[in-house]
């Protein structure tokens, strides 16, 4: 469960990157966050994860306010950033293990989970090498593994599918579905509208920091009284006036 109320952020007090955004993502839902480049998706996600502070508004994750109950809120989610080029000097296994330590994953489940995740993402043979030697998609996968190893209630993923091969992408989507179906929350941003259309229970479309639409795909078609694809609706919504 993620709740945003009246969240606003402007960089250097000039343009508002995110403007008075309110969203509620209940449990058991995969929520897709769509919008053109520079719309404010990453900024919103960074505010949810505590990386930047909103100028105004409130953010709660599973009822914990990120500004006041910071640590409790941070324990609720796992976050995959948009750029996976981090911790390059660590070995993949060291990174995943580091994340497991930070989130206090007990030894017994940790081994099992790491091996299982490695298998599902086809990373077993890469775990012993430094992340620097990974391809873009492999770096993306190790970041995702670092999150999944601690079984967070809420997944927050910034463009997790870019760079993944078809199998890994399929695996991740499958896992997102399983996660939501077990009564937990997935929040992710993407530019791949076909994926959003098929995978998400609900989507929000943001442009220039403002939410233009939030709801199910069917609601959107109803709203526009058309049977067009998400893609054409998206283009319609976000086109320049």
């Amino acid at each position, binding site marked *: 469960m993620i709740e945003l109320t009246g969240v606003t952020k402007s960089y250097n007090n000039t343009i508002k990157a995110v403007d008075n955004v309110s969203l509620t993502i209940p449990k058991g839902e995969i929520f897709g966050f769509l919008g053109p480049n520079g719309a404010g998706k990453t900024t919103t996600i960074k505010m949810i994860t*505590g*990386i930047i502070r909103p100028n105004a508004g409130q953010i709660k994750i599973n009822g914990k306010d990120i500004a006041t109950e910071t*640590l409790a809120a*941070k324990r609720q989610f796992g976050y995959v950033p948009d750029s996976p080029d981090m911790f390059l000097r660590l070995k993949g296994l060291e990174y995943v293990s*580091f994340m497991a330590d*930070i989130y*206090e994953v007990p030894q017994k489940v940790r081994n099992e989970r*790491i091996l299982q995740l490695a298998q599902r993402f086809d990373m*077993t043979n890469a*775990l012993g090498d430094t992340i620097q030697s990974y391809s873009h998609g492999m770096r993306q996968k190790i970041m995702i593994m670092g999150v999944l190893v601690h079984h967070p209630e809420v997944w927050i993923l910034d463009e997790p599918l870019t760079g993944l091969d078809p199998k890994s992408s399929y695996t991740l989507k499958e896992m997102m579905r399983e996660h939501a179906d077990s009564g937990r929350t997935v929040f992710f941003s993407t530019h791949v509208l076909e994926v959003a259309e098929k995978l998400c229970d609900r989507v929000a479309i943001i442009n220039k920091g403002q939410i233009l639409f939030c709801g199910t795909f069917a609601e959107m078609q109803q709203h526009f009284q058309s049977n067009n694809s998400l893609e054409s609706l998206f283009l319609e919504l976000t086109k320049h006036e």
Partner: protein
Amino acid sequence: MSKIFLLSKIMMKNAGSAWGNKKGSGWKSALLLLAIGIGVLPLMLVGVMFMAGLYDGLALIGQEGALLGLGVALVSLAIFVLGIVYVLSVFYYSQDVEHMLPLPLAPWQILGAKFLVALFYEYLTSFLLFAPLLVTYGVKSGGGVLYYLFALLVYLVVPIFPLVLSALVVMLFMRFTSVGKSKDRFRLIGGLLAIVAAVGFQAVIQRQTSGRMDNIEQMQQMIVNGDNVLLNLVTQLFPASKLAALALIGSDSWSGLGYLASFLLVAAVSVVVFFFAGNRLYFRGVMGISEAMAKRKKVDESAFQKLVRPRSALMAYGLKEWRILWRTPAYLMNCTLSSVLLPVIALIPILSRQDSGEMLASLSARLQGDEAGGISLAVAFAAFLAVAGANSTSVTAITRDGQGFFLNKSLPIPYAKILIAKLMPGIILSVVSMLLLLAEGGWLLQLSPVFVVYCLLIGIPGIIFINLFGIMVDLHLPKLSWSSEQEAVKQNLNPLFTLLASALAGGLAIAGAFVMGASMTVVAVGLFALFAILDLILYRILVTKGPVWMEKIEA
């Protein structure tokens, strides 16, 4: 040609300013400037005074021109040595290379732009002593407009030849180490060997000259007689520096112009050589610079168990820092290895003196006598602070995270804990330096057990103090937008602060012990109490205000 300038401009902009955030608030930049001023101005002043004295002495025997010859030669040497570092970081370890390679640019354009960037850094550094030398000479010799015109030209052209030389050395090295799987390790060993060679070379030179460079008169004597190995070598290595000096000396005559012209010609030829060699060497060496070794094999069971063993969040974080410090060549050179190398290098001037035996014996006797005991202890303390201050591990702890820093904020551990974990490697490394120094002292000076115990007692709080101070500086002036790890530690002025703080604290400790004439025990107890209290205060500030400062770092 214009493309070269354009490229170099972009490279410089991309590297960012050397201090903190671009938009760093006014007082922070002011503070930094002040710190640089405090650090640099006295150096320049002492340099000017020394040069003026040397000039006067040489002028008596009509040899003042030797000052210029020697100056230009020494500057060339310094530029050559620094050039190796600059070329490594600008040519190889700055990540813009990979973006440049696919552009429709001729190789010589990329090379030229990189050369200009390195040259620019050289100008900045040689401003410290070379500019004062030229001006001092000009004022003393009553040089006219033409002299200063020549001087400006010489200032701009002198770095070219030595920089070409260092570029050639580095390019050759990188080209021929660009083989095999463990390139990084190979290069590291090569680099270490080079350092050892340089240090050994210096030791030999020092042994030759020790006792003969103790005052200005002797130095004049030496310059005039030309009987110094080092000076001869330097002038032979940079023969063109003589031309520059002759051009300046004769700036009021036609011969000066002739010398200047031939000096410029030498520089021009060296540039041509640079382009010619660079075309052959550079791109082969730089391609795949970011390649890392990979086995792509399943991790075997026992190694797996070892790697996934659970640790507390604090230890896990500290270990992560530690691993990155040891595995990143730039950090290894500047943070980890320097803590071992510095104490060892400090030995060389002592050991390489011809009379080192007697000196040490008399020192050791006096050192632990009662009246000098207090001061000796304070001196030891100052030495520990100095090695801690010269270590830039803690003062770059935030900066080293780069863009990954922001991920810290999404982790469910208190910021204070992160800061403490980040402090650990720096403190450990400084303690290693201290232990090495103590071991050396025990070996050479037969330090008494009491003295050693006192050293440990005061050294540890002193080291913690410098490290706490360092991380606080970095919290206020982090430089997160670097494009290469080299930039994070090298093109960063924050270590200047810890250097200054350690010099200041060490100096005050010595002065205090001297003025009070305190005994060893009093000094030990006094320094321990003082720095333990200071540590406690700084620690309190770090855990209460540190998180607030950390929160404020946004990009």
